[in-house]
């Protein structure tokens, strides 16, 4: 990347970092207004994932079969305050990929999955339209970073199961439809990226959101 592109990217990031603060901007500060309400929303979801980066299958395998699809599972707890930026924790589990094949007529199978442990930030897109009642309010962007526990299982000449940590991040976009006073349903597209282990998956999930507490 050239220096000018790096500079432009730096400026974009710097401006971007001010957006959450600008989203809270009010022309006149109202110091008499009572804060709240606050809530903790618990989300559980599942769907389909697709391993979206390169994978390596050993050349020694014949009749190899690769599976990039998986069924991810997500649990997220989000603190929803009276301002737009929300913060929470996310974990879950997703298949990254698996492959099987034969070595001298002996079956070999490798399965790789990941458990994310991420701090996430989420914000509805109302600030784009400026209209709190617009559909944009139901759209939100979520991003997070943290660690992935990468689980690897090998079945060949015995079974080996290992777990390694990989730093990584996640980005998601979702639409949320109210179902009732405490329940909402979301459709979320997300990108898991365990950077250190070079594992990445694209996932589409349906999530059920439950307002656990409110004060």
């Amino acid at each position: 990347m050239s220096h000018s592109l790096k500079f432009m990217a730096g400026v974009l990031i710097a401006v971007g970092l001010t957006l959450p603060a600008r989203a809270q901007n009010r022309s006149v500060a109202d110091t008499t207004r009572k804060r709240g309400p606050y809530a903790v929303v618990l989300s559980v979801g599942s769907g389909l994932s697709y391993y979206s980066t390169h994978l390596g299958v050993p050349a020694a395998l014949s009749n190899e079969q690769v599976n990039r699809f998986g069924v991810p599972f997500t649990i997220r707890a989000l603190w929803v305050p009276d301002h737009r930026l929300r913060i929470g924790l996310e974990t879950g589990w997703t298949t990254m990929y698996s492959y099987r094949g034969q070595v001298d007529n002996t079956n070999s199978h490798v399965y790789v999955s990941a458990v994310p442990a991420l701090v996430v930030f989420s914000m509805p897109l109302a600030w784009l339209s400026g209209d709190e009642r617009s559909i944009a309010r139901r759209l939100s962007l979520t991003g997070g970073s943290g660690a992935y526990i990468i689980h690897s299982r090998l079945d060949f000449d015995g079974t080996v199961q290992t777990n390694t940590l990989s730093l990584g991040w996640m980005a998601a976009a979702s639409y949320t439809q109210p179902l009732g006073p405490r329940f909402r349903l979301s459709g979320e597209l997300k990108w898991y990226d365990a950077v250190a282990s070079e594992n990445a998956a694209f996932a589409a999930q349906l999530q059920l959101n439950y307002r656990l507490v409110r004060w």
Partner: protein
Amino acid sequence: MNTRYLVLAGLLVTLLMGCRKDYEAPVPYTFSNMTGSGKFPTAIRQAINGVYTVTDGSDKFGAQVVLRWTYTHNGADTSHHLSVFTSNVGYFDMEPQPQTGGLAVGGYWRRLQDTEIGLVQLTVNVRRSGVVSPFTGRLATGDTLVVSGVYGDGDVTPTKRLTMTYARPLNPRPFSILAHRSGGRTSDLLPASENSVEIIKMASRLGATGIEIDVRYTKDGVPILYHDNTLNLRLIQKNGLAGPIEAYTYQQLNTLVRLVNGERIPTLEEALQTVVDETDLSFVWLDTKYIGSMQKVQTIQQTYLQRAKAAGRSLQIVIGLPSDDAVSLYRALPEKANTPVLCELDTSITRSINANIWAPRWTLGDQRAEVNAMKAEGRTVFVWTLDEPQFIREFIDQTRFDGILSNYACVVAYYHYSQQ
């Protein structure tokens, strides 16, 4: 509003594109693996070995370089390569080109601290009374060897002039140039992966006279070469396998795991067989990275010391003891005779186990008094792992160490052979 969308789009592009870059330095030259020395018999090779001043090309390779021939065995045959070592962490690897008229060599050059690489084609000439003519093997008084030709960047046909003029012979002082991880680190984008059979064969072309190799055990007790304690993408090709290397059997590793440049993880026996049968290396340092009995490694060490002796090779194979745990493993050996060891701990421990070699880390400084004392007791003293060119020069010029372990054997070779 549009500005906000633009900013958002910019952020997304930045996130998706990222700043990660894959660094590569693919070798642009295919070696013929020709056996024999072609038009370069022993006398000519010896005449070419030396320190040269650089005129054309000094901006790229420095004002002075070292030229040195090395060889590898291939069965009953021998392949010869001409290396050039530069002060700016660079080397050339060239082979004779018999199809070209005169004494010609061709290959590639590389700088190890970046991705710079390119082709090079040189011929050997002699300057007599100001007139340059092809070298025919005879040097008269007043003759000067001039090795000249062209080099280029990447895989483009070389066109930039390079002229190197013989200045003096190589420094003859005995000195061990030990290459870390069997030749160098994978992260330095060498043509072969660290701790592979292929990098062992390359080690002398990179300037080494000896190698340090990292020994671990597989789950089923096979000593193998591997540096890190886990399978990871720094060292192996992506295959989904991860975790401690000791969790895997030799068959699993041998079948499914390939090092970054596609090589198999070698066993210790394969590595030592390569050293004995195919190289001119004179020293092997077996770094103890395992937990468990040292007896299997000791047996292999003794086997290959005997094979080297039978082959008429002057080869030392020593077990490195980098920690108290490793010293304990050594002390637990039932029979320690004919088991040369190298101790990285302090001088008192080195003396207590009567290690033949003491090897402190370089950051402890020159340790003049300790080095002199250990040498006076008949021990060899190495220092590890020294990669900074300025310190390599200072350690060679100002200390009494018998050798340096480095990831950049070419730099140690440059400063040692050019020392006056």
